[in-house]
């Protein structure tokens, strides 16, 4: 199967700025969306994506098309960047546990769109990082399970298990917002 990015990667590796700009335009916004959700902070997500592209430039000249799909490699580097950054973070103080969404305590009425997004974002942040990554890759990138599993370096069965547990857990955390999210 032809990798749509292979030509641009090779050209960027040889110093073609236009090819580099095309790669950035094609991938940076999507990478940023996933990194932003993984890390929770815009500035840190932008730093992570910058680091991903720096890695890309240094590898571009040696890129061997056919070995792996470029986009798969790119997302794997991005996920590793996010994992590294999450692990380097100091542990949250215990007081922060008070902020954890508690369905019974939240006022459902008058929840505006911004607050709803915040609640959902917070519930997502509370998921274990691999469950979160699986959900984000499948939702925001609309990747199939095979490709998402390849990015995460796990089997399709393991990915499906992560997805099922992550979705169940997220739904349980957001059950109190059912009226806002919609029943489908």
């Amino acid at each position, binding site marked *: 199967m032809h990798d749509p990015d292979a030509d641009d990667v090779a050209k960027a590796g040889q110093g073609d700025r236009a090819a580099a700009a095309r790669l950035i*335009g094609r991938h*940076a916004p999507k990478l940023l*969306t996933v990194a932003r959700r993984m890390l929770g902070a815009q500035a840190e997500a932008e730093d992570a994506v*910058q680091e991903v*592209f720096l890695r890309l430039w240094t590898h571009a000249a040696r890129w061997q098309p056919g070995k792996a799909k470029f986009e798969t490699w790119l997302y794997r580097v991005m996920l590793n960047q996010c994992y590294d950054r999450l692990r380097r973070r100091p542990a949250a103080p215990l007081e922060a546990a008070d902020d954890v969404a508690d369905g019974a305590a939240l006022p459902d009425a008058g929840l505006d769109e911004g607050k709803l*997004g915040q609640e959902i974002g917070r519930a997502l942040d509370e998921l274990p990082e691999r469950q979160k990554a699986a*959900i984000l890759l499948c939702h925001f990138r609309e990747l199939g399970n095979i490709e998402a599993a390849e990015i995460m370096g796990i089997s399709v069965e393991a990915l499906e298990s992560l997805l*099922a547990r992550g979705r169940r857990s997220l739904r349980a955390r957001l059950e109190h917002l059912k009226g806002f*999210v*919609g029943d489908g």
Partner: protein
Amino acid sequence: MTGENSDRDFVDRALRQLPHATPSSGFEAALLAGYDAWKAERKKGPWAAIKAGLRRFSETIWPGAPLWVPASALAVALLVGAGVGAALPAAGEQSGFSLEQPGSFTLFASDMTLEEDL
């Protein structure tokens, strides 16, 4: 609808409510600037690339310090290691312990005596 499908639909609907992550102004320009910097670095030749790699490595092990600090620490550690390594055989000779004469080292001597007694 099965539980898993229902969870998936619920989560998909919920994630659609999340605000879009819009890149800050100049984000893509910064990425391109990174590309230009890489290109400029590459033009300087392999020595510049090695130096840049060393700088990144030193930034990882000793953040914020100039390159000579971790380099000096490594050099001192090497000198101490070499010094200790050179001094050790002399110390071994003084105590009568030599790696070149394994026959003189009789750790199980008492056990063997026991076996002979049996």
